[in-house]
C-alpha cells in the first residue's frame, strides 16, 4: 500500500525529519491560500501514486501568484499516467546546492533490510541502480538487532556524502529505519534529500510503501489506505478482495493460486488466445467467493469467453462447484461461454454436483484452455 507524499511527510515530520513547510489543497483557491501563507518559490506537486511525477508534468515551481494559479489549474484534475489528480501539495521551494538519495527496503535475496545512500540523488534512482550500481552505497541491517547508528554513519560516509552534512544525513537515515520498522514499511525513501547553501538537510520528497500483510497491526495506516483503481472492474475486485489484474485480451481467466492462474494465462497465450485478466480467488475459497469471481469476469465487456481452472488443495472442489451453481442460477442463459476444469481436493464431489446444463466441462487444463480460446474466437468472428 502506497502512502501519498503528504501523508509520508507528516509521518517524517512527526519523527523529526526536516521537511519543507507545506499545505494540501484540493482546489485552486485552496492552493492560492496555501502559497499566500508559504511564499515563493513554491512547488505545486500532484498527489498521485505514480513515480516520475516531475517528468510527467505533475510538479511545477511557481515563482509568483500568477504562476501558482496557472500551475494549480493545470495540475488539479490532470490525468497522470492513468490517475486523476484530485489534490496537490503546495510546498515551500528549497534553495539547494546538492541532492542525495536515501532509502530503506527489504533485500529479498539477503532476507534482510538494506540501507541505501547515493550522492546521485534527484534523478531516476532506478536508472542509477541499473547503469551504475556502485553509485549507491548499501548496508544490510540485522532485523533481529535493528539498526546500529554506526551503520547509518558508515553507509553515508561510504556514499561520499560531504563531511559537514554527513551526520545530519545519517540521522535522517536512522530515523527512516525506525519508521520503516515501526510502520511495517516495505519501502521508504527520500529522493532527493536537499542540501541548502546554509548546509541544512531537508527531505524534499517522501516515498513510503506499507506491507499490506501487516496492516492488521497498523490501524492508523490502514485508515490512510485509499483505493486507487484504474477502472470500475479493479474497484470491484478491490471490494471483493481478489488479486485481480486487468489485461488487454478477451479470454476471462479465473483460478486458484497465483502460479496456476499465471500458467492458465500463459496457456491461453500459447494456444493463440489473449488473456483478459488475472483473477486469483485465493486459497480455501468458499462458494460465495466463486460467485463473485464469475460476476466480476462477466461484468468485463471485453470478455468473450471464460475459463475457470481450479486445482484444489486447501480449496475444495465441492465448494467451488456450489459457487458456480449459485452464480449460474441467476441466469437463464449464460452471458459468455464458460469452460470449467475442476481437479484436486473434493473434485469428484464437485463434478457430481456441478450444474453442467449451462457450462462446458473439460478434464485437463490444456483441453479447457483450448476450448475457451476457441469459444472466444467464435464470438469475435
Amino acid at each position, binding site marked *: 500500500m502506497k502512502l501519498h507524499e503528504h501523508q509520508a511527510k507528516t509521518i517524517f515530520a512527526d519523527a523529526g525529519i526536516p521537511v519543507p513547510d507545506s499545505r494540501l489543497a484540493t482546489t485552486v483557491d485552496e492552493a492560492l491560500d496555501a502559497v499566500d501563507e508559504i511564499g515563493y518559490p513554491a512547488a505545486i506537486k500532484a498527489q498521485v501514486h505514480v513515480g516520475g511525477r516531475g517528468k510527467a508534468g505533475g510538479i511545477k515551481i511557481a515563482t509568483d501568484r500568477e504562476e501558482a494559479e496557472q500551475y494549480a489549474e493545470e495540475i488539479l484534475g490532470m490525468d497522470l499516467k492513468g490517475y486523476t489528480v484530485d489534490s496537490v501539495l503546495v510546498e515551500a521551494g528549497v534553495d539547494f546546492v546538492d541532492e542525495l538519495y536515501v532509502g530503506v527496503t527489504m533485500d529479498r*535475496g539477503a532476507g534482510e533490510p538494506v540501507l541505501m545512500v547515493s550522492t546521485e540523488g534527484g534523478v531516476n534512482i*532506478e536508472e542509477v541502480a541499473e547503469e551504475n550500481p556502485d553509485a549507491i552505497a548499501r548496508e544490510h541491517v540485522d532485523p533481529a538487532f535493528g539498526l546500529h547508528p554506526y551503520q547509518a554513519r558508515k553507509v553515508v560516509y561510504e556514499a561520499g556524502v560531504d563531511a559537514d552534512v554527513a551526520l545530519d544525513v545519517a540521522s535522517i537515515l536512522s530515523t527512516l529505519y525506525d519508521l520503516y520498522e515501526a510502520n511495517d514499511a516495505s519501502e521508504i525513501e527520500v529522493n532527493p534529500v536537499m542540501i541548502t547553501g546554509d548546509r541544512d538537510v531537508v527531505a524534499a520528497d517522501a516515498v513510503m510503501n506499507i506491507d499490506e500483510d501487516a496492516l492488521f497491526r497498523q490501524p492508523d495506516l490502514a485508515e490512510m489506505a485509499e483505493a486507487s483503481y484504474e477502472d470500475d472492474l479493479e474497484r470491484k475486485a478491490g471490494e471483493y478482495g481478489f488479486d485481480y489484474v486487468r489485461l488487454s485480451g478477451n479470454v476471462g481467466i479465473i483460478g486458484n*493460486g497465483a*502460479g496456476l*492462474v499465471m500458467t492458465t494465462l500463459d496457456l491461453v*497465450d500459447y494456444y493463440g488466445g489473449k488473456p483478459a485478466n488475472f483473477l486469483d480467488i485465493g486459497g480455501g475459497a468458499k462458494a460465495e467467493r466463486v460467485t463473485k469471481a464469475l460476476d466480476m469476469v462477466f461484468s468485463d465487456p471485453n470478455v468473450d469467453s471464460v475459463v475457470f481452472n481450479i486445482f484444489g488443495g486447501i480449496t475444495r472442489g465441492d465448494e467451488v462447484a456450489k459457487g458456480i451453481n449459485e452464480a449460474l442460477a441467476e441466469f437463464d442463459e449464460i452471458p459468455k461461454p464458460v469452460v470449467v476444469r475442476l481437479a484436486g481436493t473434493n473434485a469428484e464431489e464437485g463434478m457430481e454436483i456441478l450444474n453442467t446444463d449451462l457450462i462446458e466441462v473439460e478434464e485437463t487444463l490444456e483441453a479447457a484452455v483450448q476450448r475457451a480460446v476457441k469459444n472466444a474466437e467464435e464470438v469475435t468472428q
Partner: protein
Amino acid sequence: MSIFVDDDTRVVVQGITGGEGKFHAGQMIEYGTNVVAGAVPGKGGQEVAGVPVYDTVDEAVEEEDADASVVFVPPAFAGDAIFEALDTDLDLAVAITEGIPTQDMAKVNKRLSEVDTRLLGPNCPGIITPGEAKLGILPGNIFADGNVGLVSRSGTLTYQVVDNLTERGIGQTTAIGIGGDPIIGTSFIDALEAFEADSETDAVVMCGEIGGEDEEQAARFIGEHMDTPVAGFIAGRTAPPGKRMGHAGAIVSGSGTGTAQSKIDALNDAGVPVGDTPEEVADHVEDFL
C-alpha cells in the same frame, strides 16, 4: 527413498483447533501421516482429529516425540508460531500460512541461520513423500510413489504438474512446495541439493515463476553441481511488467531480471529444458527416464 519426510516422521500440528488445521490434520492422518499431536495455546488437554492437543510445541515434542511441525496459524501469530517451532529444535517446520508480514519473516529468517531446523514456506502447500507422509494441504490422491523429485514455488502449479506426471505413470520421490513469498526458508537450491544426493531420485522438476532471482541462482547451481537431470517450468510469461500477480513475490520490476524470459534463459543455459506447458514438462521428464 525420499527427502526431508518419510513414514517415520512424527508430526505436531500447530493451530490444530482452527478450521483449516482441523480439516487438514484429518486429511494428513487419512493419508497415513504420523500426526502425533496438536499444539494450541490455551487448548491443552483437548483432543482433535484423534490426537492430543498441548499448550506448547515443547510439550508436544516431549510427550509425543514429534520431530516435525506443520503451522496452520493465522498470519498475525504465525511468525511467533514458527519461532516456537524453531526454538523446539524440530527437524522440520512447514508453514502453510499465507500473508505473514515480511518483517516478521526477516526475523524468522535470521533465527533460521542459528538453528538446525529446516523451514518450508511460508505460504506453501507443504511436502509429500507419496505413500509415506504428507505435511500440508496437498491433495494426496494425485501423487504416486516413484523416482521423480519436484520442487515448486507455487502450490496449485505443483498439483498441476504432478497430475501431468502421474497421469502417464511417472511417480514422485518427494514433492516440495517452497512457497511464493519474498522471504522463505528452504530454497530451490536446498531442495535440488537434497534431490541430487538422493539415490532414488532419477529426475527433478523445478517449477518457478516471475519475480526475484531464485530461479536464476538455482540454474547456476544445476549447471555446476547436478548430475540428475532437471526439467523446468516458469509461470508468468504473459504477466505485464510492474503488476503484482497474486503472490507477494510474483512481480516483474521491468528491469530485466526476474522476468520469465530471464529465468527460462538461465535454465536453458544450465542445460535444463523448460516446458511451454505442464504437459511438455512431463514430456521432458519422460525423455530423461
